């Protein structure tokens, strides 16, 4: 009954130390020593150093399942475990710093570029390394104890506290965006963000924390009331939060918010949102292929390129040459809105073209072959054969700005609306397809191809249809991308785009439409907003994907409908059970005694 032995705490602490060393070695600590989040005291570097020991304490204090029973770790013990693990983490991390210092920073730096004098100084608090490592261990221990204690503190404390800390940190990270938005709205900003440090001011942070605590408490209260109402009143008449009227009001408010967003957040953020829209369109398309039909397509960038280049050619873009520009070998001068249907049709045809040869492949093999097809995109675009058409490595320029009645969509704040319109369209199309017999056929096929066939689903047709529909929606992403950028080069169509899109679809939750949007916001929007982290983008991608696979394979936003209905379902189940007991009894009488018949003749199966 003692739980895990001490050695396992230390092991966890050393794992945390390894994490810290890794983060330090890739430069996530030293490079951000001046990224102030709150005042000058809370920097991103400090946050990274603190989060690791805190986290290990938090994780170690989680309840355990022992012999089928859930055991909470008692609070003092949680703090002790956290402290031990934290000290181990600090000692490990500090020892590494001491070792590097003794070995010579420059020699280590020859391999690990981010290991600098400054890093060692930062990690050891400017003290002599051994003394610094000691301080680090003590502080880590304290943080670990704090993490363990926090995990075991009562929920009514933990929730508001956690919300407050997260809210302050998020505001701190949004220091490039929120102040601009405040400026745009002609609001005073200096009380919240310091112009000198860049981050939040302490009074601003305190205010944010108080607001977050209040919001968290109010939310908990409302949820409690909702539960009471539901338990008391049964399913009908128990509309929480004032019911339909409030929901309509919220919906309208959300609509206005979405519509006004680019005006509020300014052109930098609008630019990022535009990229999010492009990737959301790609994600929605790929979601049909992978999420609905279960065909793992790694060559999805094909449709991105098809959409972009087709639109460029149809709307009279020109080729870049060394001397200036030239007319493509084949082009048209259509308007954007005339060209789009053709783009869609062509992309759908491309989908059939790609789908046909890989029809018989499944799973890994399909992924491999489509990966190859994706790799072909840049090869094709750069090839001398297609250069007269798409400009080869030099690319194209003068893509239409999709002007509607003289109103162009090139500028980020305008593009936002074009993107929004197409994303909404793609959402509606995806949703309706999923809810139709076509969506059911796809799902059945994903679950078991052979059985779907045996139940009347023409598997070949529906596979091709998935490729075609996925391609059509993805090509819209490409077309919008062309409009947004105004010029095209092969570098935009590397196979990594496929991986990014697949990543956001998986992160959000396969087959989930809100999931795609959230996935695009998280994987495309966040790195775009936090420019400092640009270099760490793929590190974050990898971490996010591994994390999601380990912790939440169904994605960030899985099928929420079911979760929400769970409670109602339970009540319905009770009612149904009562009603059917009588029926069961009748059955019972009818079949109670299976008459034992002599097996016919001598035959005994």
């Amino acid at each position, binding site marked *: 009954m003692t739980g895990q032995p001490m050695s396992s705490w230390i092991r966890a602490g050393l794992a945390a130390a390894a994490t810290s060393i890794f983060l330090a070695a890739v430069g996530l600590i030293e490079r951000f020593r001046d990224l102030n989040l709150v005042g000058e005291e809370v920097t991103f570097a400090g946050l990274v150093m603190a989060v690791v020991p805190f986290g290990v304490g938090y994780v170690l204090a989680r309840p355990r399942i022992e012999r089928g029973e859930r055991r909470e770790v008692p609070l003092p013990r949680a703090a002790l475990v956290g402290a031990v693990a934290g000290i181990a983490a600090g000692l490990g991390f500090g020892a590494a710093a001491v070792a590097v210092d003794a070995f010579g920073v420059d020699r280590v730096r020859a391999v690990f570029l981010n290991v600098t004098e400054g890093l060692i100084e930062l990690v050891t608090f400017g003290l002599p390394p051994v003394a610094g490592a000691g301080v680090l261990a003590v502080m880590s221990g304290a943080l670990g104890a704090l993490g363990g204690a926090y995990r075991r503190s009562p929920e009514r404390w933990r929730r508001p506290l956690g919300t407050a800390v997260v809210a302050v940190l998020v505001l701190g990270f949004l220091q490039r965006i929120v102040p601009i938005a405040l400026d745009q709205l002609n609001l005073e900003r200096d009380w919240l963000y310091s112009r000198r440090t860049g981050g939040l001011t302490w009074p601003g942070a305190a205010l944010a924390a108080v607001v977050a605590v209040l919001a968290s408490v109010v939310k908990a209260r409302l949820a409690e009331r909702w539960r009471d109402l539901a338990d008391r009143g049964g399913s009908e008449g128990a509309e929480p939060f004032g019911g339909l009227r409030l929901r309509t009001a919220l919906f309208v408010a959300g609509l206005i918010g979405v519509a006004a967003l680019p005006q509020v957040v300014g052109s930098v953020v609008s630019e990022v949102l535009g990229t999010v829209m492009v990737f959301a369109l790609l994600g929605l398309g790929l979601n049909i292929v992978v999420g609905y039909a279960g065909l793992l397509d790694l060559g999805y960038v094909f449709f991105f390129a098809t959409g972009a280049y087709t639109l460029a050619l149809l709307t009279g873009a020109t080729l870049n040459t060394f001397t200036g520009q030239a007319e493509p070998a084949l082009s048209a001068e259509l308007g954007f809105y005339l060209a789009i249907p053709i783009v869609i049709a062509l992309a759908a045809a491309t989908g059939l073209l790609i789908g046909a040869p890989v029809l018989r492949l499944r799973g890994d093999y399909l992924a491999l072959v489509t990966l190859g097809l994706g790799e072909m995109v840049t090869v094709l675009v750069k090839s001398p054969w297609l250069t007269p058409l798409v400009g080869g490595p030099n690319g194209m320029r003068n893509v239409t700005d999709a002007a509607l009645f003289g109103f162009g969509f090139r500028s980020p704040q305008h593009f936002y609306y074009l993107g929004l319109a197409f994303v909404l369209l793609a959402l509606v199309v995806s949703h309706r*397809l999923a809810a139709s*017999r076509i969506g059911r056929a796809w799902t059945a096929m994903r679950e078991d191809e052979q059985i779907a066939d045996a139940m*009347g689903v023409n598997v070949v047709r529906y596979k091709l249809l998935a490729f075609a529909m996925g391609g059509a929606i993805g090509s819209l992403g490409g077309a919008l991308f062309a409009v947004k950028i105004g010029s095209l080069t092969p570098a935009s169509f590397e196979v990594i785009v496929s991986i990014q899109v697949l990543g956001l679809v998986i992160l959000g939750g396969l087959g989930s439409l809100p999931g795609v949007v959230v996935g695009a916001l998280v994987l495309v929007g966040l790195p775009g907003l936090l420019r400092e982290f640009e270099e760490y983008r793929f590190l974050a991608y990898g971490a996010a994907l591994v994390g999601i696979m380990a912790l939440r394979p169904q994605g960030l936003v899985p099928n929420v409908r079911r979760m929400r209905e769970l409670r109602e379902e339970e009540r319905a189940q009770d009612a149904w059970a009562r009603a059917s007991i009588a029926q069961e009894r009748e059955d019972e009488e009818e079949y109670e005694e299976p008459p034992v018949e002599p097996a016919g003749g001598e035959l005994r199966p």
Partner: protein
Amino acid sequence: MSEDRIALEVVGLTKTFGGLAALNGLDLRVREREIVSVIGPNGAGKSTLFNVITGLYEPDEGDVRLAGRSIVGLKPHQIVRLGIARTFQSVKLFPNMTILENAMVGQHCRSRAGVLGAIVRTPAVRREEARIRERARAALAFFGPRLVGYREEQPAFVLSYANRRRLEMARALATEPSVLLLDEPTAGMNPRETLEMRDNIVRMRDELGLTVLVIEHDMRVVKGVSDRVVACDYGRKIAEGSYEEVAHDEQVIEAYLGRRAVG
């Protein structure tokens, strides 16, 4: 029951797997609204017969005719559309789809909404969708209260074993077949469930007017449902007739109990 129109006819069907003949010139005729049981020891070729009839395998020789029309060479989904539905010996559902959705997939071959229709949601498509739903529900209701009500919206994997079998049958019924092939419909069921299933098979003929070909090992079920029994061994028909006739047939008994050692 003695209508003489042939619903399903199998002529000289042969299917070999690497030299092993799973079916060896099998002949079989099933009249309309007739329940025929196929019995035989393991490896007698019963399931292979079903797989060939439903187009999962192509026969090496012989012909399968549905209402006089040859269906050899057609794809499984085309055969379902022509009116042959089946269940599988090891229950094969779409486990993550809801119970209603499973049955609605059965209606797929009886509906035709295309991409544009589904996106625009024309009135015709909406009517069709309502009809799909209604017929799927009707198919589920065939098995009483077990698959209806709140259960409709549950994923199929939550069902008990017997209910999975029922759902698989409901899905087959939802394809609106004329001929239903049931592969060991009572395998793994307890005695009560087995007897209920026996009654259900009879109801399929009497209430739905189906022609049923059933592979079954439980002799009480075979006795209870069969208009005719066909016994197979080594891919050939070794006996045919009423339950009593087949059950007392020397060859059948030998096939089940083993042959006398050859001296």
